[in-house]
């Protein structure tokens, strides 16, 4: 039997910490019952639960008990550790607003086991499609479901498939886009690593529907584990007759291969991705022709995102109408987000479309770290925008996010608090786009650089009011004239931060101040004599000898030598160093 681990934590912040008492209780009980070999207790710093009393999480089963009393310890050891039974009364019921459809298997099945996937109902949709459905009927189900692409643009999946299906060509291709370029998002990685067969199944169904016999997985080289698991899944599927010739005894044949990306964001764009597979530099082509007409090696090709494909099996199995019963009028089903930034519980969440941003951040994410206040939420990564705190009650769907000047994107969601500077954030995203621009077209290559330059000027306190206008004008030109989505959307973070936080820009420009204390050129460190206890800690830590004085006389910072590393601010125990 696998050794169990009991994670222990007192999740109440108001009372005295009881974790050590419980630790002793558990340890003693394990010793007394001779179970030390079978289980161990570990005190942990964070369980992702708050104000739920003393809590334990038991691995590998992932059973969580909360609100424990001393007397529960014996019972847990007796029934759960020894007897492998769950104690219903103590079980923590996640009154969760999450809804697991795409992620339903992730973390619950062994991703390297085809048997596990089959036991969870896997490949039933494929069997249904191959044995009972015509390609037209698959398209019909997709149409009923209202599924839209999860890779960013939200294009109706049924239309894409139907185009390719209608093309008269002996060779057609299916590509799974696993390039996951948005920095700070890892939904696709988790699906590929946690449930690779579901994506495979989606691809085979796609292949059958459009009449293709060959598919490619394009996966980022930064995800070696995903590559390994997908390869394993392909091998298993071939072995089991789920891939290859005459799948499940039908007369449909399909094969799959993996291609690796090589660290270029723009290769997530579909035409660039195709160029990359063909052995060319990954630069986009103008569309039309769309890949569904002329794609890989000039043959009709459909490209879908990992999450889109992972949705297919459950959609077909349960039927389009069932899928469409979740979500809003024009956005159906669930969406996976990578919730990060200043939230207490960061991680992947899957929610039904139409849930509000506030519910995601507060009810699922547990609110903002250190109980600071939320300033905005960023969605859509470098192509997206910010949504200020006033709009947190907006239901999440493609249309609403678009109206607010952001996008659904592939699923990055970043909470921003009052200590984050939005000029700096815009600069961060723009730097990313400038680094990743392929350089093929001028609006993106030159415009991006100019925008970045202006933002740098503003953050250094050298900005002028005209710069705001210039930013807007260049942004507009890039949106209209760039060749691909990267350049067209690169200015979105700038546009949207100006739209909602123009005041913050003005503070940088007129008052030469960064309210959040992020932009280095605009902040100054100072030691407040009344608070300074003359301990000398800052003096010892300063890397550039910018702190003058002695333990007798006290200390001051020489603003000319100071490189604004903030070390003195961090180390001072008496909050005597201020940043302004």
């Amino acid at each position, binding site marked *: 039997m696998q050794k169990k681990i009991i994670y222990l934590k007192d999740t109440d912040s108001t009372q005295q910490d009881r974790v050590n008492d419980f630790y002793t209780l558990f340890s003693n009980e394990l010793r007394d019952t001779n179970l030390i070999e079978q289980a161990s207790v570990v005190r942990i710093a964070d369980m992702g639960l708050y104000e739920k009393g003393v809590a334990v999480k038991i691995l590998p089963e992932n059973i969580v008990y909360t609100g424990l009393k001393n007397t529960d310890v014996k019972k847990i050891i007796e029934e759960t550790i020894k007897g492998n039974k769950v104690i219903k009364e103590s079980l923590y019921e996640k009154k969760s607003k999450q809804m697991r459809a795409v992620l339903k298997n992730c973390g619950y099945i062994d991703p390297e086991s085809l048997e596990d996937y089959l036991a969870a109902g896997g490949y039933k949709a494929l069997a249904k499609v191959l044995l009972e459905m015509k390609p037209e009927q698959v398209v019909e189900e997709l149409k009923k479901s209202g599924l839209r692409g999860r890779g960013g643009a939200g294009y109706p999946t049924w239309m894409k498939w139907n185009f390719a299906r209608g093309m008269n060509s002996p060779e057609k291709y299916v590509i799974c886009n696993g390039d*996951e*370029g*948005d*920095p*700070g*998002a*890892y939904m696709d*990685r988790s699906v590929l690593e946690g449930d690779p067969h579901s994506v495979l199944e989606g691809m085979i169904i796609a292949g059958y529907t459009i009449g293709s016999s060959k598919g490619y997985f394009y996966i980022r*080289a*930064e*995800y070696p584990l995903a590559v390994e698991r997908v390869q394993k899944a392909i091998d298993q599927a071939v072995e089991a007759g789920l891939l290859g010739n005459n799948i499940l005894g039908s007369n449909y044949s399909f094969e799959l*291969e993996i*291609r*690796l*990306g*090589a*660290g*270029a*964001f723009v290769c997530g764009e579909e035409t660039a991705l195709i160029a*990359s*597979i*063909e*052995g*060319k*530099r*990954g630069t986009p082509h103008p569309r039309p022709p769309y890949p569904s007409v002329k794609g890989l*090696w000039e043959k009709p090709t459909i490209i879908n995102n990992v999450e889109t494909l992972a949705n297919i099996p459950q959609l077909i199995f349960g039927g389009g109408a069932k899928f469409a019963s979740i979500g809003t009028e024009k956005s159906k089903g669930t969406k996976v987000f*990578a919730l*990060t*930034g*200043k939230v207490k519980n*960061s*991680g*992947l969440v899957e929610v039904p479309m139409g849930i509000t941003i506030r519910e995601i951040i507060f009810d699922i994410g547990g609110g903002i770290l250190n109980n600071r206040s939320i300033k905005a939420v*960023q969605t859509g*990564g470098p192509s997206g925008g910010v949504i200020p705190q006033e709009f947190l009650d907006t239901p999440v769907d493609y249309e609403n996010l678009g109206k607010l000047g952001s996008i659904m994107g592939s699923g*990055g969601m*970043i909470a*921003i608090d009052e200590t*984050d500077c939005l000029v700096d954030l815009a600069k*961060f*995203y723009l730097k*990313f786009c400038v680094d990743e621009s*392929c350089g093929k077209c001028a609006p993106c290559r030159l415009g991006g650089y100019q925008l970045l330059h202006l933002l740098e000027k503003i953050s250094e306190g050298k900005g002028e009011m005209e710069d705001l206008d210039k930013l807007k004008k260049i942004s507009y030109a890039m949106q209209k004239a760039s060749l691909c989505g990267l350049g067209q959307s690169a200015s979105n973070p700038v546009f949207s931060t100006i739209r909602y936080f123009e005041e913050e820009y003005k503070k940088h420009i007129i008052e030469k101040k960064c309210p959040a204390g992020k932009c280095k050129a605009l902040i100054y460190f100072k030691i407040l004599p009344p608070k300074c206890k003359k301990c000398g800690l800052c003096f010892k830590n300063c*890397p550039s000898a910018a702190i003058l004085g002695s333990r007798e006389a006290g200390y001051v910072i020489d603003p000319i030598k100071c490189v604004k*590393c*903030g070390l003195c601010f961090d180390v001072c125990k008496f909050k005597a160093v201020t940043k302004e």
Partner: protein
Amino acid sequence: MNNTCTCAPELKEKEKQDGIKELKEFIKEHKLLHDKQGALMTVLHKVQEIFGYIPREAMDVVSESLGVPTAHIYGMATFYNFFSLKPKAKYQISVCKGTACYVAGGARLLERVEEELKIKLGDVTPDGLFGLSITRCLGCCGLSPVIQVNEEVFVRLVPEKIPAILEKFRKQEKKTK
């Protein structure tokens, strides 16, 4: 005429023979896609894996066997960040500059590594031990900020922990010697 080039250093004789042999075998075994050029990405990944970078000699081999000009291969090697024209350091440090890590203070990690090693982004320490690069998201944003040293990922870092991490690899190096 001496046709050495400065873009990618030459290989030592022994490494060269072994590596080139392995590469040739790989290309021979590799099932060609559609046309020969379709194999290019896969083959370049193999070159990077064998040599740790894309040496000039390997470009020539690839060029000959796949029938694409060396200039095109050079273009590929410079376009994709994953391929490099210079040998990598023994321990390649990648600081994550993805969004989650940025919001969690990743920039200060980079500053600290630069300070400790006295090198800039993209450089290698004179002893060839450490190289410094950035990456855009390692997909462990929930544990940000993170850095990666070769295969090992260090999570939830603060700048103060950097010296100990570097020390760990220096010790490891001494031991292997």
